[in-house]
């Protein structure tokens, strides 16, 4: 009973935090868009095939820059969230909100901001693209660090603590290795997420905004604009090749290597579902080890002095010393104010609510002042836009479910088929959906005349179906084999087995897939509802289109803020009130007790 009460209290607390954070977001968005957006134009260039290698290279470099910044961010904030009470209370919800913000909506803001601080230099466009990719990667990896550190067995941590290792030693011996498996696993997701946004922001940049951001995304978009189908296909082919090469030679070997950092050697369940072509690096690595091993040894020998210097000089001086100093200072500060901080429980709650009330009033005032005068014209279209966009995402979800479920029905108990399916799905999912947009626009809308509504739906489905598929396959693979045997021994028909065993088992996974797809869908929406082809705008009615319209045609800060805030509020609202309860309810009911 006490536990129940506690969880209610915790829930109220966390929803209060969400409210506060949302108010913070309101301030931030209005602050960013106060001055409206100022977009200058660059003349469009024509693309040729020889531009392709350079474009691919630039895009990959952008990805790498964003990824390394994400890693640094993830370790700093993941550790803070996992190891400080304040961090856990605030950083987690912040990450959660940031995860549900459709970052594509911020691209115009990011461009305006970075171009502002770089005085119009091209580096500003670069930085804003890198920032956008960063926002698609960092939160996810941050959660990985947080969860890994949280999952360290208490005795392992105590063992390290009881030896009084230095801060940096603790990080390199304990927190870093413990985080490696999940960080790499989530990095793969983040990395493909990154492609999606990279292509998206390159397309946006040369779309209505007309910024020069050479890369594979802008290459595809320009080729589509010039109706050069073969260039679009070449571009897609090159992109898939790069993605596959990176996956085979970087992510796969890293995943295999990371297994040694797992806390306990568990049954290699995920290894079973690795597709065929992804096994390649293992065989290649074993062939090459004859050459690579001595080479690696030599390299390691060369790094020895550097490592010694880092370990004995750099880290103690620039890490342990500052950390020790800061914690000493904090202790010194916190001791005299400790009694004040502790106070009575009631006082603290009262102060908290007072501060919250103040914030709400301030926020309301701020918003009221900002939207004073005639309301922007987009207001009238907001309700119907939300409705249409939501319906569109739900339709795309329904389409995804309608082909995923039969597939699971036929494959869940056939490991070989599932293996093959996973391989194909990995291949399909590795193409960022945004890269297909130019192709779909060119062929589907321009050549076949399918209409923009259909085009948007196809784009959207391509963007979200993999979330549903991978979750469903994963859920099906996790069904305990004794339950399968039990179903067999009772002679249940395949359909009855599916209905009574498989479907209930994969339900939580399906809901997880739907939640992820819901979040990802809004990002895809912003790109897919409003498309420029040859300076001619094709759009459908929806929130994504409304946002793009506000940015590119109105250039009105108030309309943009309004669209972004309404979108975020709506996503959070549906998340907190529909998806989360549904998920928890299902988890309770359908969990395998072990």
């Amino acid at each position, binding site marked *: 009973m*006490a536990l129940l009460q*506690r969880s209610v209290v*915790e829930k109220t607390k966390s929803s209060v935090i969400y409210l506060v954070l949302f108010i913070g977001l309101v301030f931030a968005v209005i602050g960013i868009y106060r001055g409206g957006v100022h977009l200058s134009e660059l003349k469009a260039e024509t693309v040729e095939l020889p531009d392709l290698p350079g474009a691919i290279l630039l895009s990959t470099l952008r990805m790498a820059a964003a990824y390394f910044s994400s890693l640094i961010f993830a370790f700093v904030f993941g550790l803070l969230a996992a190891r400080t009470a304040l961090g856990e209370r605030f950083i987690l919800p912040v990450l959660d909100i940031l995860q549900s913000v459709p970052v594509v909506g911020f691209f115009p803001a990011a461009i305006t901001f970075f171009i502002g601080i770089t005085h119009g230099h091209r580096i500003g466009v670069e930085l804003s693209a890198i920032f956008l990719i960063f926002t698609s990667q960092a939160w996810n990896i941050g959660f990985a660090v947080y969860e890994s550190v949280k999952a360290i*067995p208490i*005795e*392992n941590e*105590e*063992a*390290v*603590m*009881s*030896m*009084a*290792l*230095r801060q940096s*030693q603790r990080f390199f*011996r*304990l927190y870093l*290795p413990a985080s490696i498996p999940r960080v790499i696993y989530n990095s793969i997701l983040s990395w493909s997420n990154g492609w999606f946004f990279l292509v998206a922001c390159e397309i946006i940049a040369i779309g209505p905004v007309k910024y020069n951001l050479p890369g594979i995304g802008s290459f595809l978009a320009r080729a589509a604009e010039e109706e050069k189908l073969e260039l679009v296909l070449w571009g897609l082919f090159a992109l898939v090749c790069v993605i596959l090469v990176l996956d085979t030679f970087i992510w796969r070997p890293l995943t295999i290597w990371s297994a*040694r*950092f*797992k*806390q*306990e*050697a568990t049954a290699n369940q995920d290894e079973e579902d690795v597709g065929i072509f992804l096994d390649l690096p293992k065989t290649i690595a074993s062939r090459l080890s004859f050459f690579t091993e001595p080479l690696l040894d030599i390299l390691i020998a060369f790094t020895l002095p550097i490592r010694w210097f880092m370990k004995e000089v750099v880290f103690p001086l620039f890490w342990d010393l500052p950390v020790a100093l800061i914690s000493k200072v904090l202790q010194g500060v916190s001791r005299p104010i400790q009694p004040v901080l502790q106070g009575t429980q009631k006082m603290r709650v009262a102060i908290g609510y007072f501060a919250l009330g103040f914030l709400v009033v301030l926020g309301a005032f701020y918003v009221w002042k900002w939207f004073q005068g005639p309301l922007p014209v987009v207001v009238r279209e907001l309700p119907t836009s939300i409705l249409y966009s939501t319906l569109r995402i739900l339709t795309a979800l329904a389409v995804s479910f309608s082909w995923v479920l039969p597939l699971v029905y036929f494959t869940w108990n056939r490991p070989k088929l599932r293996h093959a399916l996973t391989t194909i799905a990995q291949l399909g999912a590795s193409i960022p959906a945004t890269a297909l947009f130019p192709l779909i626009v060119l062929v589907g809308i321009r050549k076949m005349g399918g209409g923009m509504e259909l085009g948007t739906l196809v784009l959207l489905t391509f963007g979200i179906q993999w979330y549903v598929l991978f979750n469903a396959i994963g859920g099906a693979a996790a069904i305990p084999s004794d339950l399968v045997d039990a179903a067999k021994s009772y002679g249940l028909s395949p359909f009855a087995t599916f209905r009574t065993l498989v479907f209930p088992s994969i339900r939580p996974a399906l809901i997880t897939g739907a939640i992820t797809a819901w979040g990802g869908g809004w990002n895809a929406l912003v790109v897919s509802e409003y498309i420029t082809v040859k300076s001619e705008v094709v759009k459908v009615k929806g929130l994504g289109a409304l946002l793009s319209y506000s940015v590119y045609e109105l250039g009105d800060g108030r309309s943009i803020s309004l669209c972004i805030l309404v979108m975020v509020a709506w996503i959070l609202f549906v998340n907190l009130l529909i998806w989360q309860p549904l998920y928890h309810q299902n988890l309770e009911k359908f969990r395998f007790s072990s």
Partner: protein
Amino acid sequence: MMPDSHTLIELQHVTRRFLLPQGEVTVIENISFKALEGEFITIVGPSGAGKSTLLRMMNGLLPPSEGMVLYNGREQKGINLDTAMVFQNFGLLPWLTVSQNIELGLEARSKDVVYRRSQVNRYIAKVGLEGYEEAYPRELSGGMKQRVGLARALAVEPSLLLMDEPFSSLDVLTSINLRNELLDIWSDRENVVNTMIMVTHNIEEAIELSDRILILSNRPGKIAGELKIDLPRPRRKRDPLFSEYVDRVFSLLA
């Protein structure tokens, strides 16, 4: 116990509270006791009596909420590098080899490489892990893992060895072997470490090993009694005097 031994660690009116979501819970209340140099002390008590908390305060992992811990007569603040801990579930880092795990404590004490290597080899030999230097913990059995845990603690040559139910996750035969080896290490005067404090819930184990048993009562943990074991070693469970001690511990626990 040596006749001229002095007090190594002393707890003075130590109380420990934890802030849990349902409110503040007192786990240890007003405990005072002394451990003399050379003693083997076991702490027994029902689960939740705060045995492990007591041990962690002696190591410095946890500060007491009230009272103080004196080590060699001086108040102990932070981790006491003169102590080393052995854990119930070993606390070995899965990504480090046996040697690297043992070396970890030495690394924290900034010892040079040559010394570290020689210590690691010495204690690997002492606990009988030769040939497993480069193995990873997951490749070892429970008993071997605890040997690594023991070697890691001994390698820093602590004056006080703290053990938190070191034999609880091991099978019966393994734990008998390891108990005997522990007694050998303890009675071997060549070793630096000759004072040991061990938490256990196995009463026979406590009587078999220790000079003195500290019995804790439940929630909050207080000292319910203390028992000196005056039996010559090696002690045998069949011995009627041994069973008498078992009965006395049980009566103190009840």
